[in-house]
């Protein structure tokens, strides 16, 4: 199944076996050049925090999200620091630019943006 980057392009990566999300500690996995976390279902969001934590702690390798991510969660995944996310073939056929960036602004800082919105009101 296609692995999509933040521009919506299919990449040729071969992800490693997914880590347990409780291993999102840079002291134990920081040496790995590529890490995969699995989304176990369309409502499972553990991997969002796992990725965000690794990025917050300075992980600079490649982060891959596998499993039923879905079109409507791509933007969240890229914002927390995933480099590529898996889609089904059907979802890939339906992918449109707005799925990658549905909102023009964000209230939160994110690892994918170097200039997080600082909003006072």
């Amino acid at each position: 199944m296609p692995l999509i980057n933040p521009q919506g392009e299919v990449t040729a990566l071969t992800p490693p076996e997914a880590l347990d999300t409780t291993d999102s500690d840079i002291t134990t996995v920081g040496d790995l050049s590529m890490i995969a976390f699995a989304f176990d279902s369309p409502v499972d969001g553990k991997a969002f925090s796992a990725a965000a934590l690794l990025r917050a702690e300075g992980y600079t390798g490649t982060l891959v999200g596998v499993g039923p991510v879905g079109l409507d969660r791509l933007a969240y995944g890229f914002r927390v620091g995933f480099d590529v996310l898996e889609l089904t073939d059907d979802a890939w056929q339906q992918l449109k630019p707005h799925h990658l960036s549905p909102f023009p602004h964000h209230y939160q800082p994110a690892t994918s943006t170097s200039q997080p919105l600082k909003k006072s009101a």
Partner: protein
Amino acid sequence: MYKYNTIDQAIVDARVSQFSEQMTRYLAGTLPEEQFMPLRLQNGLYIQRHAPMLRVAIPYGTLAGYQLRHLAQVARQYDRGYGHFTTRQNIQFNWLALEQVPEVLGELATVQMHAIQTSGACVRNTTTDPLAGTVPDEAIDPRVVCELIRQWSTFHPEFAYLPRKFKIAVVATEEDRAAIEVHDVGIRVKTHAIHGLAFDLWVGGGLGRTPLLGHRLLADLPLDELRNWLTAVLRVYNLAGRRDNKYKARIKILVNAMGVEAFREAVTHRYLTDHDSDLKISPETLQDLGDSFACTLQPRPIEEHRGSAEFQRWYLQNTKPHRVMGYRSVFISLKRPGTAPGDVTAQQMDVIADLADQFSQSEIRTTHDQNLILPHVAESDLEALLEALSAHDLAHPNLGLISDSIACPGLDFCSLANAPSLSLAEALHDTFIDLDEQVDIGPLEVKISGCMNACGHHHIAHIGILGVEKKGQPWYQITLGGRDQQGATLGKRLGPAVPHDDVLPLIKRLIDTYLLERQAGEYFLGFVDRIGVDYLKEISYATH
């Protein structure tokens, strides 16, 4: 009132477009129900017993007149001419057509309203003191903190798919009018000698199948670090919370499984390790938001009211003091005979909006007890206001009395319910018809839930009623002595469940016993505390 800037408006408009596209895919069959369900829930859209139900957010329970007027228009144009105010300060429409929901959301966006995160396993609408900004002893208007949380939690990329729903409540007074101890996270803001403004944080409270009071996890922390601490709590929960069993997935279960000390240690570790300076709240932000909520009222002479007995009763029961001399906060009871608790017609919404414009700085509040408030009414306008409210069945003077009961929609609407709730609320009116008798009984909170999910908050009622199913029939368990403030306590079960028609006779026996045996100045709750549930069990079940 807080008003959207261009960024807020752009985000809400984009959400309408996003949901419209999701709905189009769903209706075209290219988005499976399994994937659509979390998306529609995060937009407050349920598929209920009769029709789709849309829950519209009323952030921190504050509405402007023009917004309520727009809700009336939605009720008229897309629903059956009424709306239902909920215990979490939101409003629900019960009879929408699925394909029209995006259009409704588009209409709401024109008046800075939405259904964002009113359901689903995400951070829900933050609730607060419905009297915020009107009471004299606030450390800060708590809506300032709620708005900060609203922004921080809206479409948060990490926390949109939590193990389960996540509810936050905020107060900024000693008195807790938002039930912070029965929320996933409760926050009390207070003044602090060193920090200026600080907060205490409770975690792990909640009702539902496993009712628990929260633990005070953190205390005396500087308010400017609130969002970093919330992020730490949510991260621990998102990574370690259970997802294998929805009934074990709330943060309260995790806190108890880990133990409070271990949970505190984990949260503190996350806070220290992942602290983000972008989340720090600046004094300017607090000032700007504070200004946006400020309501400038000039003190006025206190009126001596010599109105009718009707006025005196309404004044004593349904109005409360205001921090500014010469003003009162006026409660509009939505618990009237013949009407489901929390229901308001479109015409009544229009009337309330007009009265808010005329008498209350265009501001309306929604309460946890499914009532409304006109928060800033000059005493000199009270008689004119009462006349206008009375003309539209909006002046029922039963605030805080036995007929001012909370009830979930129950079996009449909800696909989860085991038993009807609304008929019992109506039976309370029928049983306690005389308002003088209700006043004599004194403050008494009755709360009715149609199933264990406890949307009617029965656990924290003086008299709680829980609908259960027994051999295919609705039966009801009664609890006594619950409360959500001044030492939150979960009610104790009185005894075996009883059938529908026995509930009110049982409550009547309880009340009769109380009236007979109470001490001078003792209210029902104090009576229950003093005399004990075991004794009352004997009385209540005397005929069974």
